[in-house]
């Protein structure tokens, strides 16, 4: 993962390479040299281990792992995923009976939790750590070390400026040090056979940013893991007028982190008073939702004072770090089912699930018999919020709001099998022990088949004195996601640091400038300024030119009494 692994060798121009051969020693990498190839040397077990480690932490392997990571993520976006929508996975299984089990074996429905996906990013992070730790140490040393001695021949560098002066070498070098320090270069002075020099370097923050970015990635991964272990997420569907209290049984689904127990769930409760939605009524975005409001009364603890809040899609309710999000909504027609003797078998709202943008909703009404062993009644079919009944066709909803609600139900009698073992879907009937009743209404449209059509307030009587069903009214339900993720407190700061690091790593330039003063045959001194980029395309042409010009302007000509800077 080291971004400038081969920086020293890569980024210097050919001219300059010679001049800075000495620097090669400080090449910031643990990676093997490029020409190492992938030939396995015979080095024994320890040697093999070292070789494996060096390969793993090399940039090539990091690159390969990055490609693998992106390729591995693709099936997760194309195939249905259990972590996102388990019902879609079931549908896929039903329609691809041959392929689905094979794909499942390959964990392709759990891509992001699969062994192979985890292996890729696990190796990537090992590679990253193996690269970043030695680099951090090297960078720490480089920041403390002095810039390297000036190359003998500054003319070989990509940018070079010179002038002659009668000023003393010491004066020029002092001035140069001052100027470069003023530009926040790190400077050092030295002398060799050719004369005195100043060596200056700037842009260490680039590597600091690079390291910060990669370290922050480890922070993000740590935060994700923390959230997984310490957090929980659940979902609950609440109909208007009913409520929710935070205990394991009241969730429709609940995933607890491995380190979270049921007793750790917070003690809040809330009640959905009213849900309202508005929709686009014209134009090419007809029926698109415009507002959702879930008016909720909540208590932080059982004894706390009740508060009212309007929960919206982007306005979750936050209770002591646990957030409650509005996720979905739908209709619950209220029905009353009586048996032949007038006993009320069921009276209340029944949750129907919207199937399309106009909320044609499907569901089932289950009315177990009044006495054990008696005849159960069951209904399944559709709820249409705004029913339109074209002649000779199936009625359908033409708008998502409840403007002309209608129930279209098939009726069954017999045994609902609700006492048998195993979970039964709330949204469909088990009709294996039931008989469909002939309930076709006289005025009903031909295409609707053997089904009841009820509007609000209407009652249908079932044949054979089995009972009746009344469509009492319409309520709405809202689905809430309830989530607690303490890992966010680590992920967010890490992500912010990662972006800051990235800006430093890609935006800053690292470069060196040298000033050299040498005696000339005519008794004057030659002042040379030269620069070298340590990151691509960062040749400090302007800085070198300006430094040379400001030096030329500042040293007196001739200068018997030193500088006046």
């Amino acid at each position, binding site marked *: 993962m080291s971004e400038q692994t081969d920086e020293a060798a890569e980024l210097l121009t*050919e001219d300059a390479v010679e001049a800075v051969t000495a620097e090669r020693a400080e090449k910031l990498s643990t990676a093997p040299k490029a020409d190492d190839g992938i030939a396995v040397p015979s080095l024994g077990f320890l040697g093999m281990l070292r070789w494996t480690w060096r390969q793993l932490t090399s940039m090539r392997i990091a690159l390969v792992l*990055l490609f693998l990571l992106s390729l591995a993520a693709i099936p997760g976006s194309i195939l249905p995923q259990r972590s996102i929508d388990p019902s879609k996975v079931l549908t896929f299984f039903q329609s691809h009976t041959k392929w689905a089990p094979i794909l499942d074996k390959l964990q392709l429905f759990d891509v992001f939790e699969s062994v192979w996906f985890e292996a890729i990013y696990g190796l990537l992070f090992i590679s990253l750590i193996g690269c970043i730790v030695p680099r951090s140490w090297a960078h720490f040393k480089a920041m403390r070390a002095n810039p390297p001695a000036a190359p003998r021949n500054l003319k070989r560098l990509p940018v070079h400026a010179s002038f002659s002066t009668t000023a003393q070498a010491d004066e020029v070098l002092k001035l140069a040090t001052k100027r470069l320090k003023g530009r926040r270069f790190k400077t050092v002075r030295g002398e060799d056979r050719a004369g005195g020099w100043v060596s200056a370097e700037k842009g260490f923050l680039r590597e600091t940013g690079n390291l910060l970015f990669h370290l922050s990635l480890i922070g993000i991964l740590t935060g994700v893991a923390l959230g997984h272990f310490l957090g929980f997420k659940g979902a609950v569907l609440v109909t208007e007028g009913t409520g929710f209290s935070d205990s394991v049984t009241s969730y429709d689904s609940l995933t607890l982190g491995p380190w979270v127990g049921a007793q750790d769930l917070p003690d809040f409760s809330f009640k959905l008073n009213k849900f309202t939605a508005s929709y686009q009524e014209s134009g090419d975005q007809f029926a698109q939702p*415009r507002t959702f409001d879930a008016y909720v009364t909540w208590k932080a603890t059982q004894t706390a004072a009740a508060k009212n809040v309007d929960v919206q899609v982007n306005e979750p309710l936050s209770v002591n770090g646990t957030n409650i999000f509005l996720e979905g909504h739908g209709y619950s027609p209220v029905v009353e089912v009586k048996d032949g003797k007038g006993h009320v078998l069921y009276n209340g709202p029944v949750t129907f699930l919207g199937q399309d943008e106009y909320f044609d909703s499907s569901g089932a009404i289950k009315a177990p018999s009044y006495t054990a062993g008696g005849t159960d009644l069951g209904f399944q079919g559709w709820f249409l919020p705004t029913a339109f009944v074209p002649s000779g066709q199936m009625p359908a909803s033409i708008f998502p709001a409840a403007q002309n609600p209608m129930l279209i139900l098939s009726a069954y009698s017999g045994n609902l099998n609700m006492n048998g073992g195993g979970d039964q879907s709330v949204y469909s009937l088990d009709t294996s022990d039931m008989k469909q009743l002939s309930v076709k209404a006289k005025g009903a449209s031909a295409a609707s088949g053997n089904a009841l059509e009820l509007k609000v307030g209407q009652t249908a009587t079932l044949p054979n004195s089995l009972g009746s069903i009344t469509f009492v009214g319409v309520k709405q339900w809202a689905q809430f996601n309830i989530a607690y993720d303490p890992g966010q407190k680590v992920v967010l700061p890490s992500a912010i640091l990662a972006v800051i690091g990235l800006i430093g790593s*890609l935006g800053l330039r690292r470069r060196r400038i040298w000033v050299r003063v040498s005696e000339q045959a005519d008794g004057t001194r030659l002042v040379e300024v030269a620069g070298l980029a340590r990151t691509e395309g960062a040749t400090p*042409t302007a800085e070198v030119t300006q430094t040379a010009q400001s030096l030329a302007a500042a040293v007196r000509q001739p200068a018997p009494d030193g500088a006046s800077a």
Partner: protein
Amino acid sequence: MSINENFAHYSNLFIALALVAYAAAFFAYCGEWAFGTSSRFGRSIEKLDAKGGKAKGATVGKQAAAPAVESVNATDGGNGVTVLTRAVAEDEEPTISGGNLRAEIVGRFAVMASFIGFGFHFAGVLFRGLAAHRVPWANMYEFSCAAALAMSFAYLTLLVLRKKVRWMGLPVTAIVLMTLGIAYTLLYTDAEELVPALHSYWLYIHVTAAVISTGAFGVATVATALYLLKSANEEGSLSRFNGTFDRLPSSVALDRTAYRVIAFIFPLWTFAIMAGAIWAEKAWGRYWGWDPKETWSFIVWVVYAAYLHARATHGWKGKAAAYVALAAFACVLFNYFGVNTLLTGKHSYAGL
């Protein structure tokens, strides 16, 4: 607040006018390249190339290492001192018209039409926002218009700043024209209010960052593709088009432009994903859920990260890295068109 139908109508009108102006600019840029090729200057360059062709091919491997051109400047440093500066020269920008008068005139017209097109385009996007009382990039039509505007803006700003980007004129205008055309004909949807999921100030932050990033990745892709063609030409292939290629910057300069744009925009793309994650946490209760859009944004991020790494790795630098950048942009396109139309996820809003 209700939609201002008049403004919405003006917006559509301005976008249509922008399409006309960009189309005119596109044909004028084409004309500039075409007339320029047949100029005497172009032909003389071809001849020179034919002579120096062999030597040129031989040095290609070291393009990055040995800058051939140097500029020497003598300036008065004050106090009567002469400062001699010698630096690796920035590339001379070859002119597209190649000195041909007809090409020059058509080229000027092209730039003018680009500016006029940008003016209409900007007005179209602005009135869309005024009509709907919100940022005008909340569905696929608006996002396409805005990303194209960002691209057009980037090119014209660099032009105004006298950067050497004249060579981008034709490809950038072509892409802007295509994007706007697709938006206008296939993706159009009325200016309306937003679905509840978009009622958030994060729409301004997250989507704006995504719009700018997408436009910039597009510019980088133009440079990358031209780099690959140009370096193939420098190695001796496509020699039939020498006259055209010689009016492009050197492969080194093209490669550097692509790298600079990507290095500049990659942190912004990272930020766009991060802002999206923060928004997702607020709207859906989790900051990351491998929704198809999240997955593909991640893939785009990883492939561009691979490009940045490849560029610093022996054996990958140069062409191999350029192909990685092209793959990354293919992922950007799929993340936009593919994910929005083929895959269902949480990023499906009005009018796609």
